């Protein structure tokens, strides 16, 4: 391999898995958190509707 | 503030609310109490008695409404007001590692009592602890602690005395001494007492208040109260928790 190209790529190839792993974890982390929050939110709002209906019936 | 410190009302409460989030410890309490009166506050646990007492003694600020003690606002004039009020709690509020005399001298200094040595001596004599004045408070019995704590509360000659379940934990003898002590200073102060003891509270008071869920259920002068009806009203509130 051309020494110039070799030096250029020597800094790309070993770094790639680390950078990609970091990027992947970041996205999984963020989306995981948002998903958890959304699911909890959905559950609570459903429960809230039930309770509100119960209250409306009573009134 | 026209009437200043010489208001004819010792306690004036107007629309007092104490809330945190949705939970209301006090929910619109209003009442006036003439100077020289003795108010007994009853109510089930969580009715807001302690909160009311804390607001009136400037330890907690109200969320809404106003309260004035001896003509002074509990929020705006808090520092001046603290000079005019005393608290006798079931907790002695004394330092166990100081002697009786040192405790009183310390609080005399905090209140800026004039001629503290004489005042402390007079009070120690009055509560019959003069002979124990050099002993550490740690060694005192429950009754002696309560007597000393009364002396502490009276040090600065407060206009209004607050009593927070003063009889709890006292044996009959100590309770008798407390009775006679209160009787001996009864004429000089307005009293506000929180109590669980219906008979005792009614016996001492000129006005009675029942709180439940942070609201006034009943507030009447003593002469308008029929003890049996009163007891029934009180019982109906027991079990009513916090709103």
């Amino acid at each position, binding site marked *: 391999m*051309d*020494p*110039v*190209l070799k*030096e*250029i*790529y*020597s*800094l*790309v*190839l*070993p*770094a*790639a898995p*680390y*950078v990609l*792993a*970091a*990027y992947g*974890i*970041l996205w999984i*982390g*963020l989306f995981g*958190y*948002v998903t958890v*929050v*959304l699911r*909890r*939110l959905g559950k*609570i*709002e459903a*429960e*809230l509707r039930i*309770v*509100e209906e*119960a*209250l409306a019936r*009573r009134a | 503030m026209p009437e200043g410190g010489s208001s004819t009302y010792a306690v004036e409460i107007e629309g007092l609310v104490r809330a*945190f*989030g*949705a*939970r209301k410890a006090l929910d619109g309490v209003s009442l006036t109490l003439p100077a020289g009166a003795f108010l007994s506050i009853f109510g089930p646990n969580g009715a807001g008695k302690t909160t009311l007492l804390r607001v009136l003694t400037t330890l907690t*600020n109200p*969320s809404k409404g106003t309260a004035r003690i001896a003509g002074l606002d509990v929020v705006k004039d808090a520092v001046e007001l603290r000079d005019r009020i005393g608290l006798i709690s079931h907790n002695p509020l004394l330092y166990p590692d100081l002697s009786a005399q040192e405790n009183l001298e310390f609080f005399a200094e905090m209140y800026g009592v004039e001629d503290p040595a004489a005042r402390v001596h007079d009070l120690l004599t009055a509560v019959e602890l003069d002979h124990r004045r050099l002993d550490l408070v740690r060694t005192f019995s429950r009754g002696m602690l309560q007597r000393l704590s009364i002396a502490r509360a009276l040090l600065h000659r407060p206009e209004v005395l607050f009593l927070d379940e003063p009889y709890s934990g006292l044996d009959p003898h100590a309770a008798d001494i407390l009775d006679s002590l209160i009787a001996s200073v009864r004429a000089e102060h307005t009293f506000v007492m929180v109590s669980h003891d219906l008979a005792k509270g009614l016996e001492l008071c000129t006005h009675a208040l029942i709180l439940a869920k942070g609201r006034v259920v009943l507030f009447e002068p003593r002469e308008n109260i029929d003890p049996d009806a009163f007891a029934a009203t009180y019982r109906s509130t027991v079990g009513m928790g916090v*709103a």
Partner: protein
Amino acid sequence: MAMDRNRLTFAAVVVGGLLTTVAFVLAFFVAAPVLANNTLTAGGGALIGGKLITNPVLFSQKIFFFHVPVAITSFVIFFFTAFYGVRFLMTKDKRFDTKARIATEITLVFVALTMITGDIWTRYEWGTWWVWEPRLTTYFIMMMLVIVYFVLRASIEDEERRAVYASAFGILAFLDAPLSFAITRIVPSGAHPVVLRAGGGLDAVQLGGFLIGLAGMLCFGYAIYQLRIREETAKERLEVLKASLEG
């Protein structure tokens, strides 16, 4: 009002997703993987994709486009812990305490993500998982402060007292973070080597990609915050309604 808030949250998610995707494309496919002030030791250069490359290619530098925006976002959200702490102490309004608590919670999420992405980079670039280097040390301290905020909350029974203490501590912690930063920079911390490779020298595309990534991440931070607020509000309302049903 509530409807508007929800629509804004939705918009923030969409914009955040869009911007971070654009930043991703810019970072990995457009921006030059080089830094202007680094030159090849072998001399000359090489044509790659029709462009003459005369600098060493630093792929690890790509982390800059997402690691740094996440870190900055964590600081921005942490500011709101202190801000709502002050608001709470001024008003004693429970809502402000809830806001401060949620801001701190989201700070913790972003701090954790910053720590993990940073650490992976450190492992490659410095050959070790952890170094007590000023920036790392300071950030570690900030993470501790954020965690401790919740430890403090968990240890206090009375609701209002918990809110007051947490607000006070949140304010102190936010003041403390920059102090830690300053002190580790100014007072030399012993003998360890200065390991930071290649400094600044960003070109327009790199800077643009970074800023777009930052804007996207801030949108995400805002959206998550609003979602959590909505959840808390719903939860509180639910409790009130349940109590009134039973009482």
